[in-house]
């Protein structure tokens, strides 16, 4: 007998209002907008699957990541469906923590899922999680300001051009900044952007022997460029700006350009949330020496932990929430700009979506053009465009991110920041056994 049954206080807690015979599955997810919509459609799922009930655990991304890692690493079995990213999937799959998702039903149309996204969520050729939405990065710019200054946006801008434009359009007295970029330290914050810049400047995190390359000339060039660009033509206090802060700045009309996640497009294009909706231009993320790895690939996906007791029910839920029908359901109920982007070819072929989301083509190209297995000019041993798919990367990325943020505020020089990053990363890699 479990202890919880013996102790009196638990008595009430255990009795929930459950329908007879219905199986309850616990779904853990992040509180981004698309997931909030998914949670609001609980009724629709429970109506079509009367024998399954959903219990939600919605948490902020970083809290959720820690919570899920504790549970899955100890085999706690508290969750039947977990929302995880492309970073976790290969690492967790290698430890057999996830239920492989082969033999998906035919009407799920697995081939309709975008290939780059599918690859990012597979391990040894088997899907380990189903993509709920995916994003890449791209450039947003203000058409009106570009027209005034007589600048035409080429099909593929370069970072050098971006610097030139930023210098022309920067007018700090009127709170008009040339460019907004992420500066807030964190492996998923400033390092997502900086990693893509390093990639396109010809750099990489590690060479084939897992030797860190952070003190290489390519890193030096990319990070100097970033620091110089953002401190001269960026908003004040850029080192505390993450995705949210920049989104707010750009939608209030304070930025001439912004390079960030494709998932911002829908928000910027919505006139209720953004004052620049009618002046918004889109372009691919800028490149420097190579187009490889110049824009990232991230996907939030639904996975079933191996410790779940209700794998069948969980599978029914995740195939429902990532299906073509789900996309239509959201389109009809919430409007077509709200459908989860970046997962299915059919979404991009849908005339309703094309009409209401003119940025769809850029997003699709960006996602299809990102290759997490080949994102650096020189060969690298890892998968991931803006991250390195090893467990140690969270701490490495965040540490390096802090040092680069210090260089951005002028606390240290770029050179010092990169040297200490290199030393810290070497130490971590030695301790983890990658290096002798």
């Amino acid at each position, binding site marked *: 007998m479990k202890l919880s049954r013996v102790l009196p206080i638990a008595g009430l807690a255990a009795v929930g209002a459950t329908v007879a015979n219905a199986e309850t599955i616990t779904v853990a997810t992040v509180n981004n907008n698309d997931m909030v919509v998914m949670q609001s459609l609980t009724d629709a799922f429970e109506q079509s699957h009367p024998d399954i009930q959903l219990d939600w655990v919605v948490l*902020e991304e970083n809290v959720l990541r820690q919570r899920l890692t*504790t549970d899955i690493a100890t*085999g706690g079995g508290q969750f039947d469906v977990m929302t995880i990213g492309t970073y976790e999937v290969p690492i967790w799959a290698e430890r057999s923590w996830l239920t492989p998702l082969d033999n998906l039903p035919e009407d799920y149309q697995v081939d309709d899922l975008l290939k780059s996204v599918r690859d990012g969520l597979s391990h040894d050729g088997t899907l380990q999680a189903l993509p709920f939405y995916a994003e890449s990065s791209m450039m947003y710019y203000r058409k009106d300001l570009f027209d005034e200054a007589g600048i035409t946006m080429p099909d593929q801008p370069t970072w050098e051009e971006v610097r030139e434009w930023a210098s022309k359009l920067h007018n700090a007295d009127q709170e008009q900044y040339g460019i907004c970029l992420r500066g807030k330290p964190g492996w998923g914050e400033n390092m997502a952007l900086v990693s893509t810049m390093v990639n396109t400047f010809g750099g990489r995190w590690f060479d084939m022997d897992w030797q860190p390359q952070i003190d290489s000339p390519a890193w030096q060039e990319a990070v100097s460029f970033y620091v110089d660009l953002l401190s001269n033509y960026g908003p004040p206090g850029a080192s505390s700006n993450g995705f949210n802060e920049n989104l707010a700045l750009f939608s209030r009309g304070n930025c001439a350009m912004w390079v960030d996640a494709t998932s911002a497009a829908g928000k910027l294009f919505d006139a209720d949330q953004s004052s620049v909706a009618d002046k918004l231009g889109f372009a691919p993320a800028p490149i420097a020496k190579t187009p490889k790895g110049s824009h990232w690939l991230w996907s939030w996906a639904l996975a079933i932990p191996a410790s779940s007791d209700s794998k069948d029910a969980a599978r029914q839920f995740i195939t429902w929430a990532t299906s073509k029908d789900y996309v239509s359901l959201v389109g009809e109920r919430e409007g077509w700009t709200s459908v989860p982007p970046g997962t299915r070819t059919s979404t991009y072929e849908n005339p309703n979506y094309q009409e209401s989301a003119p940025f769809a083509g850029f997003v699709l190209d960006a996602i299809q053009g990102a290759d997490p297995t080949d994102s650096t000019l020189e060969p690298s041993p890892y998968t991931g465009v803006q991250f390195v798919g090893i467990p140690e990367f969270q701490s490495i990325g965040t540490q390096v991110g802090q040092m680069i943020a210090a260089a951005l505020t002028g606390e240290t020089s770029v050179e010092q920041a990169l040297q200490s990053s290199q030393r810290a990363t070497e130490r971590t890699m030695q301790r983890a056994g990658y290096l002798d």
Partner: protein
Amino acid sequence: MTTAKNQTVARAPAAPATRSALASALLNRRLWLGVLGWTLALVIFFPIFWMIVTGFKTEAEAIADPSLIFSPTLENYAEVQSRAGYAKFALNSVVVAFGSTLLALLIAIPAAYSMAFLPTKRTKGTLLWMLSTKMLPPVGVLVPIYLLFRDTGLLDTRTGLVIVYTLMNLPIVVWMLYTFFKDMPKDILEAGRMDGAGTLQEVIYLLLPLTLPGIASTGLLAVILSWNEAFWSLNLTSSQAAPLTAYIASFSSPEGLFWAKLSAASTMAIAPILIFGWLTQKQMVRGLTFGAVK
């Protein structure tokens, strides 16, 4: 004698002036202390005030330049309520905070009694050792406790949280009760014993009534600590036993604007304990200053 008289005469007119100077100095001091007290209180309360205000703004206003001029809206409260049922989380918080406090008091009162009235050579050491458990960062024991809870079926149960919170607050509760009990004159207990009271009667009829303010303030502190505890509540619960701290954690987000919704959720989460604290502030202050002037 003459000199003394003269001196008295000479001093006499000055006396009222000195007195009034003294009175005005006292008044001044009181005034300044009052101003200082109010300023401190306002500074400490300001974040809470700002949170409450922000909860009534729209998301766009919440992130714009700080301003007190806006048209208040209830849309955040509606949105917050539609996403997660407040009542379930609040009930969990109440059960867990009060349950763990009661349990801690039940264990701590006998412990503090024996330490205060029947000390041994090792009492001081035991007290210090108890406190040393608070010196370890909780994340250090997360995995062992998680495994223990997994195997006993305590994950995501209120019982589990009650146990953890009881253990977490026990050192503080014992320490506080110990100091309150120590301040009580032993003679009263001895007098009781002379009249034939046993240990239990001694505790129930003499010790508890006489130290009630102290026990009440200790209990209140334990309730507040448990209410606000966010590490264990986030890590050991998922859907059934999650208290208000987990509720708040679901409204901050790295993607999209959230300040107004988070403020509304936080206001709702602290409201019960704020009201509770306000109603019991007399006992709190009395208890915390209990035995301070000897």
